[in-house]
């Protein structure tokens, strides 16, 4: 108990226990790693639906005449292509091409944007954003006042639709609706986005309303098999879908091009942005190392930090993420390895507890919804 007191809590902390949540220290946050069990929760999201508390995520409002050009200088994707009520996945880089964070940019209105950043990076990102302010913009870190729930899975829309008059079928992927009322709770931003590889929504609302919404959603979804889910399932789901995790697959040491999210790096966008020249050069010359999907064929599970060696025994990289895939029942991972080995079908070895275990480069995502 004494250690938990020092951890940050989301507004839902009190509710976890009621649903059997097992709380762990996740980067300084007291968050549930699981409720009924990671495998059960994982399966619920793939086949029915799951509900996640992701209120630890950070939110920064950017408002002002120069908001668009400022954000466009900060991030690698092209914000000018966004229309109001559209969201975009993007990265923020250091001048050397390493990644400050990966994030979502929501265009709330002309001259008004919401940036959604990783929990562990809130202070670092906010400092970085303030240091690079250009033109007439104001920044506001609203992370503490903002809660976020994610309802994910093939039945997410059916469940959420029961509680709102807003026609959810009109919200396409990476679009959102604002000031939505869900179960009598007003002013919710409902976005068709997620981190699981399934269809679903992320809901942003005032922190003091989230406990009520959590209960309403679980109640509404009980018929469809909606389950409360923890961070454990969130991690296995995102990994099967090959969605990058900051601090593992992408970091200050790993550029977005190396991490295989080159689709968010618009080196051809007209205006300048931080690391544009470095990333353009990486793209032109080709990166020296690349993030690939691997499958371990021998007995063992790849884990973050394990060494990867070639058939000849040379060290060629390391595992960034790995797990036993609950959907595929295979031992899978992502590894950052020398580009010459980054070809599907290449045999490799992963050093698991000092033993080289047979693995192979495979196509990722490992899982794509049908």
């Amino acid at each position, binding site marked *: 108990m004494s250690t938990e007191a020092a951890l940050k809590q989301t507004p839902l902390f009190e509710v976890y226990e009621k649903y059997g949540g097992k709380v762990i220290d996740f980067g300084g946050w007291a968050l549930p790693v699981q409720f009924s069990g*990671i495998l059960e929760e994982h399966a619920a999201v793939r086949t029915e639906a799951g509900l996640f508390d992701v209120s630890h995520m950070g939110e920064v409002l950017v408002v002002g005449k120069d908001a668009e050009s400022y954000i466009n200088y900060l991030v690698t994707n092209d914000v000018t292509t966004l229309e109001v009520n559209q969201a975009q996945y993007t990265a923020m880089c250091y001048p050397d091409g390493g990644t400050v964070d990966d994030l979502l940019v929501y265009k709330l209105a002309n001259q008004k944007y919401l940036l959604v950043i990783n929990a562990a990076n809130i202070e670092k990102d906010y400092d970085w954003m303030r240091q690079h302010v250009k033109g007439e913009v104001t920044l506001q870190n609203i992370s503490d006042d903002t809660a976020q729930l994610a309802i994910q899975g093939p039945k997410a829309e059916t469940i959420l639709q029961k509680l709102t008059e807003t026609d959810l079928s009109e919200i396409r992927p990476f679009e959102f609706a604002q000031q939505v009322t869900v179960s009598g709770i007003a002013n919710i931003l409902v976005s068709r986005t997620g981190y699981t590889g399934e269809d679903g929504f992320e809901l942003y609302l005032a922190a003091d309303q989230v406990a009520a919404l959590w209960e309403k959603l679980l109640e509404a979804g009980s018929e469809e098999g909606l389950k409360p889910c923890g961070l454990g399932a969130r991690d*296995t789901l995102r990994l099967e879908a090959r969605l990058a995790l900051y601090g593992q697959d992408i970091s200050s040491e790993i550029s977005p091009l190396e991490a295989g999210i080159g689709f968010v790096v618009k080196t051809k966008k007209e205006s300048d942005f931080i690391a544009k020249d470095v990333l353009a050069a990486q793209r032109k010359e080709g990166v020296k190392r690349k993030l690939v999907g691997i499958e371990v064929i021998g007995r*063992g*599970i790849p884990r973050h930090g394990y060494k990867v060696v070639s058939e000849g025994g040379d060290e060629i990289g390391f595992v960034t993420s790995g797990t036993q895939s609950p959907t595929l029942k295979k031992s899978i991972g992502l590894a950052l390895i020398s580009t010459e080995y980054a070809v599907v079908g290449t045999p490799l070895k992963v050093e698991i507890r000092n033993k080289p275990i047979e693995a192979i480069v495979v196509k990722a995502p490992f899982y794509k919804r049908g």
Partner: protein
Amino acid sequence: MTKATANLLYSKEHEWVLQLDGNRVRIGISDFAQEALGDIVFVENPEIDAEISANEAVGTIESVKAVSEIFTPLSGTVVSVNDVLEDAPETINEEPFEAGWLFELEMSNPEELETLMNEDQYQAFTNEGEN
């Protein structure tokens, strides 16, 4: 607790020990341990004929999230391992005291049994940890 577990001895690393014939013992992990680990997806047991020493890490249990070592509470020679766990590691979650056992040992130093806890002592030990 059922009476099936009444004869078991326990280590502080949450292994249980069942005495079989002579110096032979069967070792597994406790219900408390499997509950704490969560869904178990991989088990690496020691090899048959391996000579192992008390408190040594002799294998690995992985849940979806975490890697944990198996510590042997006793010294001896590994005479049998539970092959069921190779394809069905979740057996440990389902039946930690029965079908989910880990390995069997021919003890080289049976006096080490005295270092272990009985069921009541183990219950007290795990309750302590939760406060």
